């Protein structure tokens, strides 16, 4: 049995020391956006389970304490209470770490929210590798798969701060359950100005006709970095921000599959059941032939560590993505 290597954390942004990268907290964006909507929409209420601060739900709760409920470390109750509030016409927005939201309270999310199709929005934070220091107990790389399997659930994985805010607006404009997956650390800014946002309509960020990189969440930024590296090597990469995993934008996938020679999906999630699986299903059922690879965690639990360290360790940064793309094209 091989031992895990001793972990030494990289210095902050060591891998991008040549760049001046602007970063912002996606976990703050939803809450700030919601607080902006709250005055005109008294039906909005916010709930958390002893993580009002850690999810930054406090950006709303501090301004609207009478419409905020801290249910304590009791996630099953948290979801049931949200369902009950929805039954009285409120729009509950529930924020806690994804691992507790979708796993501890999975049956409540399924049976009390999705089955009756209640108008509840779920904000899962500390997803992916962004809270890698918290380790397996607190960070999750299986949540997209779980959320995607639940009927009636919309699954959104925004790329950055402004897209998270736009996703929150779109979720509030829609009737029914929506899961928005965000991280914990400050993540690179992809959109300098607010992008238009339509649930189920992907953003194509870069034209390209050799290879397509489809990313979600912070992996959109890394896909752009990969595209830069590939461009320097003479390879033209199309980059797609697949912010909605369900319903998936099948059209953008199939168009890219026909117009480029290879396609890679990139996600901070295991390669089982998430973005890569969703794209693979579309490709397989359409019978489109394209070289295809899912990049993400293999069927493992990530070790603990800072996000930049983990992204390098598991090949989830621009350099590694570019290498995978080149290898796939050379196959």
């Amino acid at each position, binding site marked *: 049995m091989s031992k895990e290597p001793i972990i030494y954390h990289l210095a902050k942004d060591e891998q991008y020391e040549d760049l001046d990268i602007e970063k912002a907290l996606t976990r703050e964006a939803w809450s700030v956006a919601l607080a902006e909507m709250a005055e005109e929409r008294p039906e909005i209420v916010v709930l958390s389970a002893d993580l009002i601060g850690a999810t930054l739900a406090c950006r709303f709760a501090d301004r609207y304490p009478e419409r905020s409920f801290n*249910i304590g470390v009791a996630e099953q*109750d948290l979801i*049931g209470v949200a369902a009950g509030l929805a039954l009285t016409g409120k729009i509950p927005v529930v924020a806690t770490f994804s691992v507790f939201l979708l796993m501890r309270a999975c049956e409540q999310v399924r049976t009390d929210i999705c089955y009756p199709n209640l108008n509840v929005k779920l904000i899962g934070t500390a997803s992916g590798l962004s809270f890698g220091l918290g380790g397996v107990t607190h960070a999750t790389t299986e949540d997209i798969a779980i959320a995607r399997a639940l009927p009636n659930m919309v699954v959104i994985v925004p790329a950055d701060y402004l897209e998270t805010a736009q996703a929150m607006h779109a979720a509030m404009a829609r009737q029914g359950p929506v899961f928005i997956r965000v991280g914990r650390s400050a993540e690179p800014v992809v959109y300098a100005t607010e992008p238009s946002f339509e649930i189920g309509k992907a953003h194509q960020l870069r034209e390209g006709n050799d290879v397509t990189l489809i990313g979600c969440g912070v992996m959109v930024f890394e896909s752009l970095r990969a595209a830069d590296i590939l461009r320097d090597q003479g390879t033209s990469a199309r980059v797609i921000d697949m912010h909605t995993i369900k319903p998936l934008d099948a059209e953008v996938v199939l168009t890219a599959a026909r117009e480029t020679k290879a396609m890679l999906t990139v996600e901070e999630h295991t390669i089982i059941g998430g973005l890569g699986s969703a794209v693979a299903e579309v490709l397989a059922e359409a019978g489109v032939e394209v070289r295809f690879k899912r990049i993400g965690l293999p069927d493992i639990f990530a070790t603990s560590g800072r996000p930049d360290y983990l992204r390098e360790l598991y090949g989830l940064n621009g350099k590694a993505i570019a290498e995978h793309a080149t290898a796939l094209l050379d196959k």
Partner: protein
Amino acid sequence: MSKREYIPLTSERIRELTLKANDIRRELVKMFGIAGGGHFGGSLSAVEIVAALYFDVLRMSPNDPNWPNRDRFILSKGHASPAMYAALCDLGFFPRSVLDNFEKPGNPLTMHPNMHKVPGVEASTGSLGHGLPIGVGISLGARLDGRDYRTFVLMGDGEIQAGSVWEAVMCAAHYKLDNLVAIVDRNRLSCDGLIAELQCQDPLLPRWEAFSWKGREVDGHSVGEVAAALRAVPYEPGKPSVLIANTVKGKGISFMENKPSFHRANISPEQTQQALAEIATRREEWS
């Protein structure tokens, strides 16, 4: 919370409610007869509680099932749905023909109730331990809206083994939800047998009161006692109320009473006739 007006609980009123309970018992046996079987035990133990709620305590409007000021009733022990269906049908929420096709393909009345299919059903229940948290949410919603309706949640005593129930018990007390009422149909049997042998729950009422609820205990088959106790909520201002209703699983059908095998059972046409005959005899005694 505004004071409710009720019909005086005279012996004649109690007789009326007892006959309603008997009617529910008859209808649910017929429904299970149509289906060829069902959750007899826990449905029969809940009959007087359901009758007291629907025919005496709940403020509602069958012509307007979504009336915002209606009292809410959540049948958290969703497997007792036929008792609720019988009451809703009697009150005119849906026609008789629907009741007569219980569990038939396409019929809205299913083993576990679906709020989107059946008028008057407040929540889609069936998975145990879900109703009380939902009740807490509705009670918080009522408070936010400044409405004075109450929310009643009926659970089984097997159900209250679920941790989610106790999460909600703590939460309701924290928010001082005196518009919330939990009712425990304490028939002392669950799917696998005697609850006391699975997980001892005694002393039950002190456990709830230790969590800052205020409770009462009644004979759950005395519809008058149940109605009087439910009329009296909240038992203490600023506290949620719990009513422990001591019941008999399979109540009213001699060969089902206290029989774990009748938690859910198939039933022959002969057994159905015998059960209906026992219920008819009791109706004559009360008429």
